[in-house]
């Protein structure tokens, strides 16, 4: 029987590997959802009724149902129903499916934040710019953009922090992220079995990452606090 101290390097190694996968999913989701969210926001504010209807319905469905179900559907549906598994086998296929599900899900949340930011700017700002002879693009870049960013940062921060924890949902399609790695020592892996403490240990990873993120995001918020 090994002591916990002896098991530690093995467990840390496995958790680190899982954590890398967690981080990859986190960053890929942000990278995809930031721009896609903007596209969806534009769609939901479009003057075309059809486009607006479609995007708003999509946002309603995605925000109204659990991310876990979306993950399961995106991962299994093509294979089971069309007998056409589009996700490659193994870990890389699971990662692709998870990334797609997360990007779509988070893009929908982001789109509502963008929309709030854009629509929250008083029309007076636009009109003041127009009356001063500015072009529409000058008004956007010189007047509205920074105000939008300021309005968006706090709700966006909340979503980003939620995303750190949400990545663990990818466990449901057996993506080998940090929870999966921690759990493996319960069933048995690398000579360690029946150990629950590695799972608790994963919480430290989350706490530290969220702590760092919170500090960074608060700094950004502070930098924008010179105006109201």
């Amino acid at each position: 029987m090994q002591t916990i101290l002896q098991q530690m390097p093995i467990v840390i190694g496995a958790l680190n590997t899982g954590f890398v996968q967690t981080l990859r999913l986190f960053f890929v989701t942000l990278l995809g959802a930031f721009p896609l969210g903007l596209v969806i926001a534009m769609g939901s504010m479009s003057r075309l009724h059809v486009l607006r209807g479609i995007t708003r319905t999509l946002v309603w469905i995605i925000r109204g149902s659990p991310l876990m179900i979306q993950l399961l559907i995106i991962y299994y549906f093509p294979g089971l129903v069309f007998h056409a598994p589009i996700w490659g086998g193994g870990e890389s296929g699971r990662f692709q499916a998870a990334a797609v599900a997360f990007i779509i899900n988070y893009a929908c949340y982001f789109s509502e934040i963008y929309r709030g930011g854009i629509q929250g700017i008083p029309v007076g700002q636009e009109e003041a710019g127009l009356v001063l002879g500015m072009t529409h693009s000058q008004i956007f870049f010189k007047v509205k953009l920074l105000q939008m960013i300021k309005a968006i940062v706090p709700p966006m921060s909340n979503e980003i922090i939620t995303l750190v924890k949400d990545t663990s949902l990818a466990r449901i399609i057996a993506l080998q992220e940090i929870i999966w790695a921690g759990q493996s020592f319960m069933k048995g892996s690398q000579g360690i079995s029946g150990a629950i403490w590695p799972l608790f240990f994963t919480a430290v990873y989350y706490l530290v990452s969220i702590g760092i993120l919170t500090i960074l995001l608060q700094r950004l918020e502070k930098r924008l606090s010179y105006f109201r």
Partner: protein
Amino acid sequence: MAILEVEHIRKTFGKTEVLRDISFQMEKGTTLSLIGSSGSGKTTLLRCLNFLETPTSGIIRVNGETLFDASVVSRSREKEIRRKRLHFGLVFQSFNLFPQYTALQNVALAGELLAHEREDWRQNRKSIRQEMQEKASHLLDQMGLSDRKENYPHQLSGGQCQRVAIARALALEPDILCFDEPTSALDPELTGEVLRVIRSLAERHMTMIIVTHEMAFARDVADTVIFMDQGEICEMGDPKDVFQNPQKERTRQFLAGYAGV
């Protein structure tokens, strides 16, 4: 020659006719005050002059140049509309300052952006910018805001904000400066400082159209007063005559609501 000629302006929103056949003229260097009850179309008229609304019909001329003629179908390019707009300035009831810029930047910004279109912008960028800053600074001095130039709007009182907004509008040297109830959003004790600034502009013969509910001010500062009612000019004339001896029953009723003027 009249600096501004407005002929038969109409404006409808859907089925409601907000402006019906508005015509008047203004001489350069004079002040016009526009009074009338809520919903009579005063704001809409100012917005039409500033191209924030498009009149349904009518003509707007400045210095003899036709800026707008509803009967001439034109799809003006943005650049063209912007050039026309610059004949007018507009000071809003709610200031609409840009919150992320200091008072000085608020005043200088539009001029700098316009200067991008100058041919010598690339060569003289620095000196043009310098020039704009100095002009803005000078305007803020005139507004009595010498010690407030580096403050952001949220650090200023309503009266100070409105004076920055007036400086911002003046920076582009409009032919005609319009005010839409410039003191309505202010605490009563702050209206004085804004009215004083407008009065000093009138003394320096800035051409101005002022929508206001301050009847004493409208009477004292204006060369001409227009009383609007239900989208029409009901009465127009010398303020002394209109206020002391209104010809129309509707004017009398309206003014009776401001007893003590």
